[in-house]
Structures are given as structure tokens and as C-alpha cells.
């Protein structure tokens, strides 16, 4: 099965959720693959994160502020293309700080402000960590 984590940003909370799910979280979030990589995010393509302990292929994708709308759309697309929820599981990651993260993402376009904005984003993500963990899929 494929698991796609979607969120307002494709390179922060979704990358974190994917790596939490795969149990591959380093102490420094900046070491996560694709973390804060806006070029990858702008491609609009789902980012392959790795394979979890159950053999599922894990992806992260940024879809803008209306995560629920895109989730509905992607689930319908899977059905229309003749696949099922067993082929692709879409997991929305909604966090309180997503608005602030989007703002800081805009701020970090100025190169001089980038280190500060990423440091603030990491701080927000750490605060939202319990919420992200609660949204991960549970397999038994």
C-alpha cells in the first residue's frame, strides 16, 4: 500500500509525520530528507519519504490551506482511476500552527530571514508534535 501524508506544507509537518510514522526521526529536524526544501515543494509532486515497517511506501505532499478539500478530491481520484483505499491511503495532517508555518514559509523567501524562520518553524512543530503523533495511522 501507499500512504500519502498531506498538509498545508509539503516540507514540514507532512515530512515530520511521515518520518514519525517510519520511526526515523533525528534529533535535528533539519536532517530530515526534503525538510524545508521549497524547490521540492514547488514541484507539486508527492515526495517519496521511504518504506515503513509494514512495507508501505510513504509520501508527503503540500496541498495549501484547504487540506480537507484536497483530501476529498484525491480520494475520489483514486476511485475514479479504478484503485481502492488499499492502494492509497490519504492521511491529512492538520496542526494549529499551520497558518503560522505558511506565513514563515513566505518570510523565508528572503534569504537573510531563512535561518530564523526555519528555527521558528521547528519550534512550532515541536509544540505540535503530540497532535501530529495522534494523527498517524495505527496498524495492528
Amino acid at each position, binding site marked *: 500500500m501507499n500512504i500519502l501524508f498531506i498538509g498545508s506544507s509539503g516540507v514540514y509537518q507532512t515530512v515530520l509525520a511521515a518520518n514519525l510514522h517510519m520511526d526515523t526521526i533525528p534529533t535535528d529536524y533539519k536532517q530530515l530528507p526534503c525538510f524545508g526544501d521549497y524547490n521540492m515543494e*514547488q514541484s*507539486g509532486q508527492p515526495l517519496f519519504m521511504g518504506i515503513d515497517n509494514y512495507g508501505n511506501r510513504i*509520501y508527503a505532499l503540500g496541498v495549501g490551506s*484547504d487540506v480537507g478539500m*484536497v*483530501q476529498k478530491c484525491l480520494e475520489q481520484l*483514486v476511485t475514479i*482511476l*479504478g*484503485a481502492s483505499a488499499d492502494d492509497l491511503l490519504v492521511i491529512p495532517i492538520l496542526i494549529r500552527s499551520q497558518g503560522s508555518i505558511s506565513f514563515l514559509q513566505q518570510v523565508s523567501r528572503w534569504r537573510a530571514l531563512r535561518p530564523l524562520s526555519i528555527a521558528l518553524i521547528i519550534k512550532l512543530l515541536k509544540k505540535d508534535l503530540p497532535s501530529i503523533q495522534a494523527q498517524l495511522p495505527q496498524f495492528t
Partner: protein
Amino acid sequence: MKIIYHCYGGSHSSVTAAALHLGWLDKDKLPNYEELMALPYYDKTNDSDFGSIRFMGRDDMENEIYVLGKKSLGNRFNHILMGVAKIINQEDQLVVVNVMKHVNWSMKIGGFTSRRINIPLLGRPVVIWGTRKAFEHMTRLVEATRLRVINSKQV
């Protein structure tokens, strides 16, 4: 093959393009008020329709034609949909067409007034005027899409 025409609300430009693709509108004749309003979903959607991929019909090549309103996600949405299709190995079964580039100001203002703030009496004539103005561009887009589909089937 599945062809999805998408725009902001999935209510005007994508529906017009899909209707052109299906041959419901004559590409050589500007549609009038009644012809446009007779199209399913044309200026009839509401907020809950955002993100819904709605089936319009099958074309003469048995392709399934859909419309979708994706708000302001822009051209990036093409990559999102194609990327997801690729994950499930179905990217050769999907064509995604963004109609937004042919949406003019009349369609934006008329569509907003009719669907968003719910005053169709004011917005509908404006959006229909805009649709007629953009009709030739949409015809070309649909022709290009049909050619693209034919070519992809021949490969």
C-alpha cells in the same frame, strides 16, 4: 482514459470546456444564455462542490470527462493530481487540464457574485457574457486536449 477539466469553482469554465469536449456545445457557434444554463452544473454549484470530481459524460472515444473546482490551487494542482496517479501507476490513464488561464475578469466577477455571494440575478449575465468572450480560447484548449489524448493513445 479520464480527462479532468478544472477551474476555481468547477462551475463555469471547466463545465464549458467539458461540454465542448463532449460535443454538447457547437465549437463554431457562440452559445447563448439558454444553451449555457442547460449545461449540468453551469452556475449551479455551491461550496460543498469544491474538491468534488464530477462526471460529465463520455466522449466519442469513450474517454470519461470530469469537472473539478479546486479553488486557487493553480497549475500546481495538475502536478498534485498527476503525482497521485503516478503513485498508483495510473498516470497514463489521466489527463488533467487547467482551464483557469482562459478565465477573464467578467467570469471571475460574475462567478463570484453569482456563486460566492449568491446574487445570480446580477452575476449570471456577467459570467455568461464572460464565457462567450472566452469561448474561442476554450474551444482551442479543448481541441488541443483532444489531440493530446489521441496522440497519447497512439503511443
